[in-house]
């Protein structure tokens, strides 16, 4: 839409003649946008995965000694080290690890000898269910509260939302989780306090198990989304184009949802992108609290045993999710805000 208004597009001509340059421009813009995103994401990914990998070499635990026990001779340990590839330079080891990881091979656990990728494949759906549900709740609740508050700034509802957001941002997720367990599992036993059933087995049970943890995890993000959306929407509703749309007789609903919200959603989306690492970190605690068999249990168990391949594998997956979410949010921002598209073009 906006691209048509730009002078680079031929002003008159048959529809196809206009369409091709626009499509081409789109492709070029998308390409440069993606290129820019990759220029940032790739170094970030390399550094953070290298930090993850290098941690292992700071460890004082030797897998060979740990696996073989007290009876191991130095020759045994050397053979084992060679087998794990630990006798090679760090950068070579990192390169082997990351290329193998790109092919879906994250090594095997030092203790159970189960491939790390298999353990992660088993536990990841729990985390994805939990965080996706939490994000959905946050978007719905926070979005609704933010929009409603912005439509009547200064009203009692608006002040109530602001106050609730301030409270929600000081209460840690696990305290909220404990509160939810006390209310809904102990005092009024209506929901289970822990456990998990896959969605494919029983969607109703899945929801019953996940609703409390997802609520506990989402609250913080809900408050953030409500606060951010309220502020930017109040600002947008004061702008000239909104007044213009109203003067032209467009309905209030159309003005708010089609015109203002699209412009106000940008900062909120940025908040969402920034919050993904925290959501994943928060999931660790929520999962422990509600006894969910997710990746955090895998990480915690591995941490207790110093099972380094498992720890590195789970961290790698967490980093990948964060980076993917960032690229996604960037893409959506470009799609959402015409100015962002213009700048990258």
């Amino acid at each position, binding site marked *: 839409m906006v691209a048509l208004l730009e002078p680079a597009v031929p002003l008159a001509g048959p529809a196809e003649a206009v369409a091709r340059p626009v499509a081409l421009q789109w492709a070029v813009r998308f390409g440069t946008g993606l290129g820019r995103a990759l220029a940032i994401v790739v170094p970030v*990914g390399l*550094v953070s995965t290298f930090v993850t990998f290098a941690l292992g070499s700071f460890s004082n635990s030797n897998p060979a000694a740990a696996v073989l026990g007290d009876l191991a001779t130095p020759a045994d340990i050397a053979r084992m080290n060679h087998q794990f590839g630990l006798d090679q330079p760090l950068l070579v080891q990192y390169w082997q690890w990351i290329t193998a990881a790109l092919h879906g091979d994250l090594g095997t656990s030092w203790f159970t000898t189960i491939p790390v990728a298999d353990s992660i494949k088993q536990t990841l759906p729990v985390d994805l269910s939990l965080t996706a549900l939490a994000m959905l709740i946050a978007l719905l609740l926070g979005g609704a509260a933010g929009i409603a508050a912005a439509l009547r700034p200064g009203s009692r509802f608006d002040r109530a939302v602001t106050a609730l957001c301030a409270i929600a941002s*000081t209460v840690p997720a696990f305290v909220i989780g404990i509160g939810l367990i006390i209310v809904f599992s*102990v005092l009024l036993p209506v929901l289970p306090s822990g456990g998990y059933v896959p969605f494919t087995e029983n969607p109703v049970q899945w929801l019953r198990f996940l609703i409390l943890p997802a609520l506990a995890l989402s609250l*913080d993000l809900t408050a953030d989304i409500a606060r951010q959306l309220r502020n930017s929407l109040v600002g947008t509703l004061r702008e000239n184009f909104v007044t213009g749309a109203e003067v032209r007789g467009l309905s209030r609903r159309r003005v708010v949802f089609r015109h203002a919200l699209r412009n106000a959603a940008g900062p909120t989306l940025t908040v969402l992108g920034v919050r993904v*690492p*925290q959501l994943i970190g928060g999931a660790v605690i929520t999962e422990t609290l509600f006894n969910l068999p997710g990746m955090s249990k895998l990480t915690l168990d591995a941490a207790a045993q110093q099972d380094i391949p498992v720890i590195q594998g789970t961290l790698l997956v967490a980093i990948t999710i964060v980076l993917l979410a960032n690229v996604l949010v960037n893409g959506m921002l470009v799609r959402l805000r015409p100015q962002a598209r213009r700048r990258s073009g």
Partner: protein
Amino acid sequence: MTALRRALQLRSARISLGLLVLVLLVGIFGGWLAPQDPLAQNTAAILQGPGSGQWLGTDYLGRDVLSRLIDGTGRSVFGALEAVGVAMLLGIPAGLASVVFGRVFEWVTLRFVDSLMTLPFIIFAVAVAGILGNGPNQAMLTIGVLLSALFYRITRAATLGLTSAQYVEMAELLGASKNWVIRVHVWNKVLPTIAVTTANCLAAALLAVSSLTFLGIGVQPPVSTWGGMLASDLNFLSQRPWAPVIPSLMIILTVAACNALADAIRDTTGVSPTARTGITGPAAGAGSAQGIGPAQGIGPAQAGPAQGASAR
């Protein structure tokens, strides 16, 4: 320190600071203040309600809850202080340097800080504790390193806004050295911003420390921490459903006091990075709960000229 003095004219700041000083004193003198031995078990009186002898009752091993709460204060608070201290030492000089030392240093540190921010705090701290050993310092230093990204960005954003100010350009034209400009013109103006960040980070670090101790990271079992008490109370909810209330309140009040202090400094000095650069970044509200990087640290820095497409 004028920033703090000005902030103390607000009642909320005085109350918060009073509360924080109280918590700090309890933290330092906890061992002497506890009415009973926080580790002494009494199997004859387990899971008691509040009453004679024990003000807050006893836990599942018959240990006095009040004593454990007082004893655990120090471990919880000093852990957070350690993390924030490390974050300041690493983040602030790097943030200042990124503005001064030219493009290459800037690009490298920015990417490094971006990388730190993609690491999910809690998982990374768990991983570090798992790899390097489960001591209190490993976990706190990790949190400190990750939080330093925030100090870096805040310092950088505030400094960027200042170095383009006319009087700084003037000083440079008159031949002032970079060091001199930073010491005289930049540092004093950046200080209130850093004070706000420090208070917010303290809140975030407290939450992170209680989360980690809740998971059993950074503590060895018999000793008490606020998070650890919550974790053990969780198994006996049907007997003592109100038990998590007190440790939760301690965490919430301390965190809220830090955030209120940050807000008070921000309101009274008016020198927030957003106000300086005239760019409205996202969420200039109180520190965030999972803590882990209040959003306001990120908005203004994103507006810095050297970063285009980053979502952060």
